[in-house]
């Protein structure tokens, strides 16, 4: 679906944001890209829909090169992007009109836009708020509207560029649940960029970035086996993984691919009843 070939990018002469990244995103996959501030993960996101053009190397979306300006709109239609600040990506004063903004730009006939908007709002569970003004909604709700705005363009990939970073825990839950559901039920390819390791446990695959390079890729469970390495890269393992590691150091036998609360609980309960 998306293919990055040895991509580099720099904002100015002295510092390089990306130093040769190769990565491929498969159709229907849920990929999490994690890294701490300045690791180049947001730059990577903006390269995916031709907001930025790589300095060297190529980004191919469905075989289309982002360097080719004649396919820029086609690429942006295929790769929907949700940004960090929920306020700064909603354009109009009424929720449903905002969701319609993308399809309007694509020149889709009015009746079809109407259908898409209704469907998109329903998918994110915001149909009730169709006539609301964006500034009256909570952060999580605004991000869901932003996602709906992307869905209405019928993209094949949804890129979330730290879309949960400015939300409170319940808002974050709302957005992540919605995205996971989209991936599971509609087979939407998702690229989620985040700095929270614990958000990556719902992904199929995790890529860890540091200083403009991809340091590790693998299943969430495999990545989280190595919490010491993660700490070196400036990332904190989720609380459950820290608990698991601490228990294992004390000699408790736990499967080392247990990463969620449920998995740890399932592994611990038989041990407790044995005691």
């Amino acid at each position, binding site marked *: 679906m998306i293919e990055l070939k040895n991509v580099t990018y720099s904002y100015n002469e002295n510092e390089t944001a990306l130093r040769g990244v190769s990565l491929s995103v498969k159709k229907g996959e849920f990929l999490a890209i994690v890294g701490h501030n300045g690791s180049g993960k947001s730059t990577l996101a*903006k390269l995916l*829909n031709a*907001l930025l053009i790589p300095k060297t190397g190529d980004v191919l979306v469905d075989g289309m090169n982002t360097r080719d300006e004649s396919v820029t*709109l086609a690429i*942006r*239609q295929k790769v*929907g*992007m949700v*940004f960090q*600040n929920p*306020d*700064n*990506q*909603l*354009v*109009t*004063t*009424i929720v*449903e*009109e905002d969701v*319609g*903004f*993308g*399809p*309007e*730009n*694509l*020149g*889709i*006939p*009015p009746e079809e*836009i*109407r259908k898409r*908007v209704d469907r998109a709002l329903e998918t994110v569970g915001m149909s009730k708020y169709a006539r609301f*003004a*964006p*500034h009256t909604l909570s952060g999580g709700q605004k991000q869901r509207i*932003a996602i709906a*705005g*992307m869905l209405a*363009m019928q993209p094949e990939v949804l890129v979330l560029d730290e879309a949960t970073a400015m939300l409170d825990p319940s808002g974050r839950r709302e957005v992540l649940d919605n995205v996971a559901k989209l991936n599971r039920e509609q087979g939407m390819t998702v690229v989620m960029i985040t700095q929270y390791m614990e958000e990556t446990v719902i992904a199929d695959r995790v890529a860890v970035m540091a200083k403009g390079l991809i340091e590790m890729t693998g299943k969430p469970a495999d990545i989280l086996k190595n919490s010491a390495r993660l700490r070196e890269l400036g990332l904190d393992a989720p609380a459950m993984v820290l608990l698991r590691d601490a228990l294992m150091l004390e000699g408790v036998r736990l499967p080392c691919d247990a990463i969620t609360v449920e998995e740890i609980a399932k592994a611990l309960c038989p041990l407790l009843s044995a005691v």
Partner: protein
Amino acid sequence: MFKNITLGQYFPGNSAIHRLDPRTKILLMILYIVVVFMVKQLSLFLLCAVFVLGVTLLSEIPLSYLLKSLRPLKWLIVFMFFLNVFLTPGERVLFEYWKVKITLEGLRQAAFISLRLIMLVSGTSLMTLTTTPIALTDGLERLLSPFKRVNFPAHELAMMMTIALRFIPTLMEEADKIMKAQLARGADFETGGIIKRAKGMIPILVPLFISAFRRADELAMAMESRCYHGGEGRTRMRVLKFMPQDALAALTVAFLGILIVIMQAFVF
């Protein structure tokens, strides 16, 4: 401080007037202004008043709301009234004291000018009271789009207005937040003369501007991500369509105009 600000003066409702096409309302407002300026006889303002009251009743807007829209102009109206009373030359003197002279012509002229102002403001307010700012923007864009051929940026203007409307509440909230943050740091916005207070606004305005620019940058990126590329080839979800009611409204205003012209030509 900024909590209860309303944008424009839209009065929510779903009356026949509210449902009129915004283009109809804009055009009829212009026509109404022309009609009001055609009135040369004091008594014919009665017709305009009947029209305004009729529309107000139809739109289910409380009369007090309409009067509220006149309030900011009350000093202008009073000023215009007295200016005309004292400065209009005339023959039939009603009252004279030293250099002050009040004539019948002056009084008539003063009443005429004030009534014209009142009719203009109340009639045009009816449009803004019954149309949401976004519908107005939409209507304006479509009315102006024929001028695109001579490079008039109709779509761009409408887009700017939409974004401004969208971000005013957001920036208001932010100004409030910054103000509280500065108050917490010991800033004083309440005391001192006007210059001191104006200077006090600087610590609010600077961060507000910086943040507005940052927002603009991010918004531009978000719009680009959603394939925005100007007005070309763009469709709209909501299509404006003229309905029979729009024709009826147009006929009513036209009838008012014709009635006034005929009355002036034959009756007076």
